């Protein structure tokens, strides 16, 4: 209730003030038009009296002030005209001082003063000095601030500066600086005084109002920033010390924060570098509640950008020992501000790190130092749970990755993993993912076992469960994580077999700690990373291939813990094939043995059995390293498995596929026509049995497709010159099929029809080819 009353009242007072102002302005205009100086002064003074009010908040006072300001411009022009008409400016200057009340008097004085300076009848510095001191007469904060602001505004373009028309004697710049500094100091004092005025309960409201006025004070610093005559020396010796003195001594949190920030924004980066010690030295002297981390961060950010803008400025940074100074200052601030939350400290180190990466990118020791200081601070708190702080740390740790685009460089920072130790599990994983993404994006190769070791230490959050009781994790997320680890493994290699072996061992060591959940994702990439490295497996006169295969054997074995027998079986067969290429018969045999054991003991699902057999037969067919005995054993087993599949059609197909085990087209020694035929005949028997079963259970014979498939196989071996697969055999099978298809009990099967038709077409086609092939086929009647 009270507040709305207050606002309503303020509106009323403002309206009244504006009305009064406008009324007097009207009369003032009349006086100006009729060149009536006396009246002009009278009405302008009355008009300015409206600014004597204490009732308005700064925001509203500003509205009134702006109108007065506009009117005073007209008055100023009038004064200028008057002097041209012969009125003495000195007299005018004296005349206005007869105004009854001090505030109007001073506004008028400043206005005349402006004209006085322009007339150059007295040195600018004298007039300015007079004005700035006279303004001391107003000690009310709001009124004083606006008055001095007016003074600053009208004097702006009349400051004696180098190249300005108001140059006087050699020390001109000093005078300008002195004027602005004085105005600034007085304004700051008034501004701070507002804090202490009024009852405690309105403090918050007052601070808000104070905040609205801050730019009035800050403007002075902007003006200083634009005075051309201020060189580095003057800044160092006069300007900065005086400003800092006021900032420190006013002991006001709001003022200190704002003004420090102002200094940083207004003056050139070059100056900051050269006065770093002084500037940073002021920081611990400020009120403990001042948000120093933001101030310092901003300063470091500015200087980082400065460094990034041109390589020529970098030596300067070294020369002033910028890094050491910042490092020190931050340490002191963190020490002094005991209540600073942890994320604040991390933010400071993060800014310092960014600064270091920009300014001294080649100094890894500096980067490591910053991380070390951060670790020290973190060690006081234990693992971080605060989300703001963890975000800052992720930002801190990502910075070197982004800068160097090379994880290997980050791996050299000894404190990097130590910082990660303070992250909770969730954030650890996030960071690990960021690291992996950086590697993948930049296609970084990690080429030594040491680096791999260091890397896996960093990403251990993804490699294993860090907690004894891990949190529930979304299955999709988990898969994504592990797949990214799988991708990472592709980036770890070295062309040197010795080193590659070490890398494989290191990776293996780590992934085995991952537990059954992770192994199906991590084992295959490791196996293939080993196998695809040709040199590794084909090195002659070296023990490395054997070692590798041993390791792979043991690694695949670990999959039995999961268990994923199919995957393990496929991998054993891949290894067998690789061993085959290395001519390592015992090794290849061992892998086949393992595969077969898995088949017999672990693969019960029919569909899986079929796929497994395809792979077994396919792989075995390509093996050339086996001696007769070994080959026979493995082949015998394979055909045995084939015949024992559950469904007859599957049996049939697997068995006729086995026929290829007895025939290797490239080696005459491996062409056993008889056993091929035995296989095919066996397949035929199974196909027959399938037909009979179909008859018995469904009343009609099943599809003849199997027979057609076997026929195609006959033709295959017929063409290859297997003496056992002769014309008679082919012919009788064709007749069998034809009969079956025409028989009444068989259902019309369009698939079989088309298949048979195209097979017969093929035979015709071969006949027409002529030559030995044509001759062969000639005998077959279709």
């Amino acid at each position: 209730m009270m507040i709305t009353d207050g606002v309503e009242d303020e509106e009323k007072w403002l309206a009244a003030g504006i009305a009064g102002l406008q009324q007097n302005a009207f009369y003032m205009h009349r006086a100006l038009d009729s060149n009536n100086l006396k009246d002009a002064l009278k009405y302008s003074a009355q008009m300015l009296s409206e600014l004597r009010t204490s009732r308005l908040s700064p925001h509203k006072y500003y509205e009134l002030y702006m109108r007065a300001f506009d009117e005073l411009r007209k008055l100023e022009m009038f004064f200028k005209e008057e002097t041209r008409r012969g009125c003495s400016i000195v007299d005018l200057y004296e005349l206005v001082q007869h105004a009854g009340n001090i505030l109007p008097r001073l506004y008028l004085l400043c206005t005349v003063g402006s004209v006085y300076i322009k007339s150059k009848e007295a040195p600018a510095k004298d007039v300015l000095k007079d004005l700035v001191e006279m303004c001391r007469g107003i000690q009310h904060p709001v009124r004083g601030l606006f008055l001095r602001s007016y003074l600053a505004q009208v004097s702006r373009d009349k400051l004696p500066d180098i190249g300005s028309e108001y140059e006087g004697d050699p020390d001109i710049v000093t005078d300008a600086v002195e004027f602005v500094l004085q105005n600034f100091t007085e304004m700051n004092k008034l501004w701070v005084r507002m804090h202490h005025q009024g009852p405690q309960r309105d403090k918050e409201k007052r601070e808000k109002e104070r905040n609205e006025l801050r730019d009035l004070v800050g403007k002075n610093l902007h003006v200083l920033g634009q005075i051309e005559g201020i060189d580095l020396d003057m800044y160092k010796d006069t300007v900065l010390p005086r400003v800092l003195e006021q900032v420190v001594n006013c002991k006001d949190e709001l003022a200190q924060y704002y003004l420090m920030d102002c200094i940083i924004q207004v003056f050139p980066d070059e100056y900051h570098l050269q006065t770093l010690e002084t500037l940073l030295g002021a920081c611990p002297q400020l009120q403990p509640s001042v948000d120093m981390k933001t101030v310092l961060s901003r300063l470091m950010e500015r200087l980082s950008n400065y460094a990034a803008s041109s390589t020529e400025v970098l030596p300067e940074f070294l020369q002033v020992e910028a890094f050491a100074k910042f490092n020190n200052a931050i340490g002191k601030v963190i020490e002094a501000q005991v209540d600073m939350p942890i994320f604040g400290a991390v933010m400071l180190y993060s800014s310092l790190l960014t600064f270091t990466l920009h300014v001294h990118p080649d100094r890894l020791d500096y980067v490591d130092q910053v991380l070390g200081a951060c670790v020290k601070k973190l060690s006081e708190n234990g693992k971080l749970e605060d989300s703001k702080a963890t975000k800052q740390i992720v930002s801190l740790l990502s910075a070197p990755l982004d800068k160097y685009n090379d994880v290997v460089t980050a791996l050299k920072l000894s404190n990097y993993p130590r910082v990660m130790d303070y992250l909770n599990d969730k954030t650890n994983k996030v960071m690990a993912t960021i690291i992996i993404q950086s590697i993948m994006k930049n296609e970084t190769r990690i080429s030594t076992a040491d680096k791999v070791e260091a890397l896996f230490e960093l990403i251990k959050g993804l490699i294993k469960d860090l907690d004894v009781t891990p949190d529930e994790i979304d299955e999709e997320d988990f898969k994504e994580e592990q797949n990214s680890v799988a991708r990472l493994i592709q980036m770890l290699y070295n062309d040197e077999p010795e080193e590659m072996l070490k890398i494989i061992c290191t990776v293996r060591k780590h992934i085995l700690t991952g537990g059954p959940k992770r192994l199906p994702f991590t084992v295959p990439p490791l196996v293939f990373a080993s196998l695809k490295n040709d040199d590794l497996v084909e090195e002659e006169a070296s023990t490395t291939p054997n070692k590798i295969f041993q390791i792979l054997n043991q690694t695949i074995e670990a999959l039995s813990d999961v268990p994923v027998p199919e995957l393990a079986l496929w991998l054993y067969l891949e290894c067998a094939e690789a061993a085959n290429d290395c001519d390592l018969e015992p090794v290849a045999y061992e892998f086949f043995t393992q595969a077969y054991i898995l088949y017999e003991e672990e693969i019960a699902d029919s569909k899986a059995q079929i796929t497994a057999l395809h792979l077994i037969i396919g792989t075995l067919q390509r093996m050339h390293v086996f001696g007769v005995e070994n080959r026979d054993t493995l082949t015998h087993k394979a055909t045995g498995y084939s015949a024992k599949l559950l469904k007859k059609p599957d049996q049939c197909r697997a068995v006729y596929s086995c026929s290829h085990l007895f025939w290797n087209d490239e080696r005459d020694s491996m062409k056993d026509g008889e056993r091929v035929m035995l296989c095919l005949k066996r397949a035929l028997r199974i196909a027959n049995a399938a037909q009979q079963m179909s008859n018995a259970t469904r009343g009609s014979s099943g599809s003849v497709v199997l027979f057609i498939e076997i026929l195609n196989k006959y033709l295959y071996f017929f063409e290859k010159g297997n003496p056992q697969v002769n014309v008679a055999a082919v012919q009788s099978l064709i007749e069998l099929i034809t009969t079956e298809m025409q028989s009444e009990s068989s259902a019309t099967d369009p698939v079989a029809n088309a298949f048979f038709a195209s097979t017969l077409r093929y035979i015709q086609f071969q006949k027409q080819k002529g030559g030995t092939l044509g001759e062969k086929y000639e005998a077959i009647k279709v």
Partner: protein
Amino acid sequence: IDFAKEGELEQKKMVLVLVLALGDLHIPHRVADLPPKFKSMLVPGKIQHIICTGNLCIKEVYDYLKSLCPDMHVTRGEYDEDPRYLETKTLTIDQFKLGVCHGHQVIPWGDLDSLAMLQKQLDVDILVTGHTHQFKAYKHEGGVVINPGSATGAYSSLTYEVNPSFVLMDIDGLRVVVYVYELIDGEVKVDKIDFKKIATTHSTH
């Protein structure tokens, strides 16, 4: 006569039927990703059908390919994560019947005669298979057998040096132009082969 409609008809005939055939990516077991040069070429909206021989191996790859073209046909490779893919698939595009199979089921692996048998059995003009990671385009009396190779150049115990490759088929009436894209020494090389089909019979020459 409505001239506008006529024009539309004419335009419809000019519509491209592009079929992307690829497979054996083996992501992430053997390779981290498709080669960047291939990725930049494979843009959504340009392809009408995708045929994938298998061994993607993870859902992420499936989703990526699906984003290039919603009409996707996949067959099962032994390392594929999803157990629901079929062993073989047939589909008709324009005048052509196509068959897809990963190829580990056809023994001996890579043997063209044995693949031709599968082709006859499926009764298709074009058979697309993989597993060997080696590009092949073979025309025989019964049709065409295409192996698009490995799109990522993944390691295979069957092939010594694998270059990343994939196939784009431009099917137009009774004619199909097979473009094969291979990444050799960092450069994309394109080759093309023409096949025509005789309308009245099944065979493709």
